[in-house]
């Protein structure tokens, strides 16, 4: 708490010193956000967020933009309750850089691509920030150099250079395991004897059960060679926004590359041995080809966005098995083997896409529908699920009250057996605006489902939440 108070005093002093200067602007918001589990009354989330942004424009030539988050997150009795200040944005924009209509953006920033609503398959330049799994579309900022060129009023060409690798933020708190990649191991290990040893009556396979798993994240070197880059061409044609993009970079979600198995116990008789696995996780490099479109047809807002992902090579999980002879203490020539598993194949790309529409009826009811093939963390064709998302909202009392009675979605994991593999979410919300700068949101999240799938595992986390946002 002391850190937070010191930080606030520090910011106040800076603000007082320079706020009066022309062309500068301070802004931000304070947002407490509390969620409680409807099943057991335990707190699921407790966050107090203060954001402070400062920007200064130098006429039409340049602009400096900064944004810092100060937060407390989690259980107040936890020593890690207060998070360190986080620089979410610190960039300099230079307009008409070198030549007219060429803009340079340098520094920590959010580079948003895609035209869909919140869930954007082509929005991959910044790693996902999944800390709050309900804040879809939130990304970490990236240190980047961005050049944007506008050859005419309808066309934009972007080039992005990302010098450093950044991993994504995995979900925090009770949600920490929700999106964990599936590192399931085979349930047996093949064993055989080398030639020349006295033959033993060994089974051809021994059953194995994983006792403990240790994950070692191997980040790419902090080296200039580990950069990422991307290009995008956007154009408006007859009122339709079109864009195509290419991105070569790291995936923020790792894949297992090497698994070293250690035997904790060996039991040939019961055919059940226990193992510990130390898994090294690496971040794959991917080629991503994106396309998006947005337009308007008879009052209906329409959008579509797709991303084809191609691994730059085959990613294979190599499994190093233990030396059973060493475990037994006698060299009996026993060899144990577990097949390597292919995680990604270079020649097996996968396509994620979303199509959506929104419409506002004469009575003011706003509707938004999206069909999504492949959620943020899903990769390879067999992992991609289908999501049908719908939201209806209407404002009342001169826009002071907003109700969203129908908000949520339906997830289908397997069309061949829909009733055994599905999930649904219902997230009605009520927002009240007592004054121009305050928004109070109250809602519940009800989730149910069956079978495998990310959202099914959230069904024990039905919640009620309240969030207040004050902008200044």
């Amino acid at each position, binding site marked *: 708490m002391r850190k937070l108070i010191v930080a606030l005093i520090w910011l106040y002093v800076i603000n007082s010193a320079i706020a009066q200067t022309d062309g500068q602007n301070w802004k931000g918001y304070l947002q407490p956000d509390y969620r409680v589990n409807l099943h057991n009354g335990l707190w699921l989330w407790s966050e107090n967020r203060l954001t402070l942004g400062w920007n200064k424009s130098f006429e039409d030539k340049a602009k400096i933009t900064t944004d810092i988050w100060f937060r407390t997150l989690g259980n107040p009795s936890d020593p890690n309750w207060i998070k360190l200040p986080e620089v979410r944005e610190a960039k300099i924009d230079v307009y008409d850089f070198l030549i007219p209509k060429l803009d340079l953006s340098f520094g920590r920033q959010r580079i948003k691509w895609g035209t869909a609503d919140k869930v954007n398959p082509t929005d991959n330049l910044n790693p996902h920030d999944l800390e709050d799994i309900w804040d879809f579309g939130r990304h970490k900022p990236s240190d980047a150099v961005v050049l944007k060129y506008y050859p005419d009023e309808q066309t*934009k060409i972007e080039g992005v250079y990302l010098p450093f690798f950044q991993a994504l933020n995995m979900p925090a708190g009770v949600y920490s395991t929700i999106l964990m990649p599936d590192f399931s191991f085979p349930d047996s290990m093949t064993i055989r004897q080398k030639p020349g040893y006295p033959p033993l009556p060994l089974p051809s396979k021994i059953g194995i059960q994983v006792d403990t798993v240790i994950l070692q994240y191997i980040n790419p070197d902090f080296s200039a060679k580990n950069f990422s880059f991307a290009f995008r061409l956007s154009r*408006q044609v007859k009122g339709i926004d079109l864009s195509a993009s290419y991105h070569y970079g790291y995936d923020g979600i790792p894949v297992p590359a090497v698994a070293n198995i250690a035997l904790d116990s060996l039991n040939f008789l019961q055919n059940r041995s226990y193992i510990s696995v130390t898994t090294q996780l690496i971040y794959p490099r991917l080629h991503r080809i994106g396309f998006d479109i947005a337009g308007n047809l008879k*009052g209906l*807002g329409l959008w579509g966005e797709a991303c084809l992902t191609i691994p730059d090579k085959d990613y294979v999980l190599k499994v190093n098995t233990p030396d059973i002879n060493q475990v037994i203490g006698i060299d009996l020539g026993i060899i144990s083997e577990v097949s390597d598993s292919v995680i990604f194949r270079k020649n097996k790309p996968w396509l994620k896409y979303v199509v959506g529409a929104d419409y*506002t009826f004469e009575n003011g009811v706003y509707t938004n529908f999206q069909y999504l093939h492949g959620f943020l963390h899903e990769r390879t064709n067999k992992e991609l699920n289908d999501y049908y998302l719908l939201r209806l909202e209407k404002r009342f009392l*001169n826009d002071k009250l907003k109700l969203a009675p129908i908000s949520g979605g339906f997830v289908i994991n397997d069309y061949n057996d829909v009733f055994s593999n599905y999930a649904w979410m219902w997230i009605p919300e009520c927002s009240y605006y007592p004054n*121009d700068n305050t928004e109070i949101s109250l809602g519940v999240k009800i989730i149910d489902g069956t079978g495998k799938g990310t959202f099914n595992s959230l069904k024990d986390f039905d919640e009620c939440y309240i969030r207040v946002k004050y902008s200044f």
Partner: protein
Amino acid sequence: MKALVVLFLVNLTALFAFGQNATEVLKKMDETIYAPKDQTISIKMTIYDKNGKSSVREANTLQKGYDKRIFRFTSPASQAGIGILSLPNDVMYLYMPAYEKERRIASSAKNQNFAGSDFSYDDMESKSYAEKYDAISLKNEGNDYILELKPKPTHQTDYTKLIITLGKDNYYPKKVQYFDKSNKQIKELNNQKIEKKGNYWVATLFEMKDLRKGTRTVMEFTSVKYDSGLSDDEFTVRKLVQK
């Protein structure tokens, strides 16, 4: 029989001339409103609820010709930075700083209130009346023309009829009455403080009343600058997200 044919032809000619006259007046009104090559305007918008309680918003807007406008709130904090770019071909973009990128506005949303005011996105769109409406009839009433407009089939709007009162001397609209499907007046715009600034007629105070809700919004131009040579580049998505 001959007399009937003559009468019919006379009526048809009169009707044609009459309709053309209404169209001409509509055209002249558009020319008056959009006479400046470009406009740079600072706006104070006061929104009154039905109990008379008010809230104030401030904004800047740039306008070029008939069909290019960029509008941006400067206060209050929750709205500051929200911008709207209106372009030809029914293209409108909304920029919200919290969303961090521009977004297309579906034309169905244009009939919704703009930022809690009594103006709709449609009202804020930069488009001449003649482009959106057909002139149906014209009446003379003292020093004013009363012009009745119906939306063109291509223009999607909740309004089924507009009645505009405009001065015969300057063709500047004084009052606009908006009607719904049941031919009931739902809104009324009163343009006040109409004066000639330089070569141009302009109103610097607009009051839009929503007759259904009993609310009203007063939009006042706190500063206006004409013909400063704004380039087309000012009316691009680049500028919308840049500011």
